[in-house]
């Protein structure tokens, strides 16, 4: 009796499972031939795992673009407006999953183009997939120079590489503060982005005549107390951290616990995000960072958002927080696609010829946006990267990030040296 009931339950479960599987497969098999009057855009980013916060930074930027253009009726092509529909795929913060997620969006969802992940490691895994399937792909976040050195034909990026961005804070500290710092120690995390941030800190410091007392790359997720103890013993004037927001919060907490008092803390990327501020509270004060965009810049946009302030206000109304440069760059990635589509006058769904034409249009693109000019390099080490933006040094002062340099970009004087922990 019991066995019979069990068998019935088993068959019922099997039937249900079969129905669910059919449900998954059915609409997808029909999509190859579908006709639609909207653009279907795949987004691969980290919605879970270690980098879930950063992934959502890019998501907010992409959503901002999609919702704004849809509110205007969509992208206007040859007199007709086409809405955009973002299809998200979670890369779970791991490169292998990013590749699988990208492949799924291309082969099963049949997206028209792809907006890329938050982290450089996942972008480096996704780019060969978009290359294989000849799928246009713009990342609004990844900063590793490795991506551009590999010269992927189908991958573009709106943010300059970290090797350019990270220079700003070190240049400001080397030239614009008094008494001038003489020494620096650099601690970076071993991932495709962070170690290049650390390396950029190091090479800029050497170029500016600072003595590098220690340069250390450590694995993500380890206890950062030992390397910070070793750095504290060297007593550097500047302590520079190449990492993401989570590790940055942890390193700052450890520095405070160990009473490590350098004259300046420098961090990239994360100090511009609300979680860094919330996680450290008033201990975020005096930390230096770097950016390529702030709402105070004087860019003039010709499409979607006219000025950085207009974007910042719209963003704050929608999400309740101030946008940082990664969010702005992610929105700009959408704008780049939108303008390139207008140039080639392609209607959805895109054919392979139109996708190739889109690459040509992106290479020739030269537009002004609220985020700054977008012009992708077509040769050299920054191939397909929007490398022309000016990096800005930031510092936390009275709970806000303010522009402190370098040179003429200064809005407020940098506060230097940072008071010791017991005098804050």
């Amino acid at each position, binding site marked *: 009796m019991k066995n019979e009931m069990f068998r019935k339950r088993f068959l019922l479960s099997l039937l249900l499972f079969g129905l669910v599987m059919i449900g998954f497969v059915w609409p997808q098999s029909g999509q190859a031939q579908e006709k639609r009057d909207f653009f279907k855009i795949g987004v691969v980013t980290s919605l879970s795992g270690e980098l879930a916060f950063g992934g959502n930074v890019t998501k907010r930027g992409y959503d901002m673009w999609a919702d704004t253009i849809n509110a205007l009726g969509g992208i206007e092509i040859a007199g007709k407006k086409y809405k955009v529909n973002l299809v998200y795929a979670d890369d779970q913060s791991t490169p292998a999953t990013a590749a699988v997620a990208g492949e799924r969006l291309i082969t099963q969802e049949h997206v028209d183009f792809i907006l890329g992940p938050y982290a450089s490691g996942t972008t480096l895994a996704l780019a060969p997939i978009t290359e294989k399937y000849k799928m246009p792909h713009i990342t609004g976040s990844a900063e590793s120079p490795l991506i551009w050195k590999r010269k992927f034909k189908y991958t573009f990026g709106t943010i300059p590489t970290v090797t350019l961005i990270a220079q700003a804070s070190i240049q400001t500290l080397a030239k614009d503060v008094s008494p001038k710092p003489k020494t620096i120690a650099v601690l970076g995390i071993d991932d495709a982005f962070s170690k290049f941030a650390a390396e950029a800190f190091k090479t800029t410091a050497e170029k500016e005549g600072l003595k590098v007392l220690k340069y250390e790359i450590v694995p993500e997720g380890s206890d950062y107390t*030992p390397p910070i103890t070793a750095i504290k013993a060297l007593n550097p004037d500047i302590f520079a951290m190449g990492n993401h927001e989570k590790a940055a*919060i942890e390193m700052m907490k450890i520095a405070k616990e*160990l009473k490590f008092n350098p004259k300046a803390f420098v961090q990239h990327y994360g100090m511009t995000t609300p979680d860094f501020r919330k*996680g450290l509270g008033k201990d975020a004060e005096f930390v230096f960072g770097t950016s390529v965009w702030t709402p105070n810049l004087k860019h003039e946009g010709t499409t979607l958002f006219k000025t950085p302030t207009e974007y910042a206000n719209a963003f704050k109304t929608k999400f309740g927080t101030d946008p940082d440069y990664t969010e702005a760059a992610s929105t700009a990635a959408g704008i780049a696609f939108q303008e390139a589509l207008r140039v080639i006058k392609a209607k959805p769904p895109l054919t392979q010829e139109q996708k190739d034409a889109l690459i040509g249009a992106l290479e020739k693109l030269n537009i002004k946006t609220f985020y700054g000019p977008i012009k992708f390099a077509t040769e050299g080490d920054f191939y397909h990267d929007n490398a022309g933006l000016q990096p800005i040094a930031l510092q936390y002062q009275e709970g806000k990030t303010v522009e402190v340099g370098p040179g003429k970009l200064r809005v407020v004087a940098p506060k230097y040296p940072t008071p010791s922990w017991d005098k804050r």
Partner: protein
Amino acid sequence: MELFLQTLIDGLLIGGLIIVVGIGFSLCFGVMHIVDFAVGEWVMVGAYVSFLFVRHLGHDPMIYLPLIFFTFCACGWVIYPLIYRAVSGKRHNPVLMGLVFTFGISILAKGGALSVWGYHIQSITTWLSGKSISLGIATVPALRFSGFAFGILITILFMIFLYRTKWGIVIRATAQDRDTANLLGADVRKVGAFVYSLYAGITGMSGVLIGALFSIHAAMGAKYCTLAFFVVVLAGMGYVPGVIIAALILGLLQSFVGVYIGGRYNLVALFMVMYGVLLITPKGILRKGI
């Protein structure tokens, strides 16, 4: 000398944190032969629950330690029958079943935490946060020291309980030979539920300390799972007293390698030690494991 002393203190304090995570995990394995893959997720949920207590009720998170202990004991008590079912009966490889089942719990907890509490990185601050005791030539971070003291205290209480009480004898008998203990009247299922609750309670509490020291997010548990495995292998599978020594060795190893050789070699050193122990003394450094 200053650097050496600071490195030594750092190592001991890192070890202290590993004790807190490893102690319940070791007991769980020793008594029930369950390798709980969700150990890190108990830490993560413990950290989130303390964060919620602080957000909604205020006060210092340390005050909620007893409340978190009992809450998590109750959770462990509720979940245990499911685990028991997965590892008992006619299954050919109960240890593997337990591993797979708890791996599922771990994925569920991570996904659940992300859905319920979101992607933001959270922080909790205790009155000890950022404070330190200056010894002149070295600094002892107060919160880490409290974690260390907590780990040692928990282990001592555990040892007293295991070796000086009737329940402790029953638990040890069950760990030694489950079937014979059962024949002699020990309610193996009840012992298992009790131990699993205790493990969940202690590991949940460790989440409060870890959350205050670092940051709180859904994926924070993974590294504690790895550390718990390291410590149990080094201590000897299921040998509770070995946890203190193993955790301190791991802490000191991380600290000395991090300072004198380089932080990048930390994991390499940990793995090399683990492989060495597995090859030379598979029963742990004290040769008292299973």
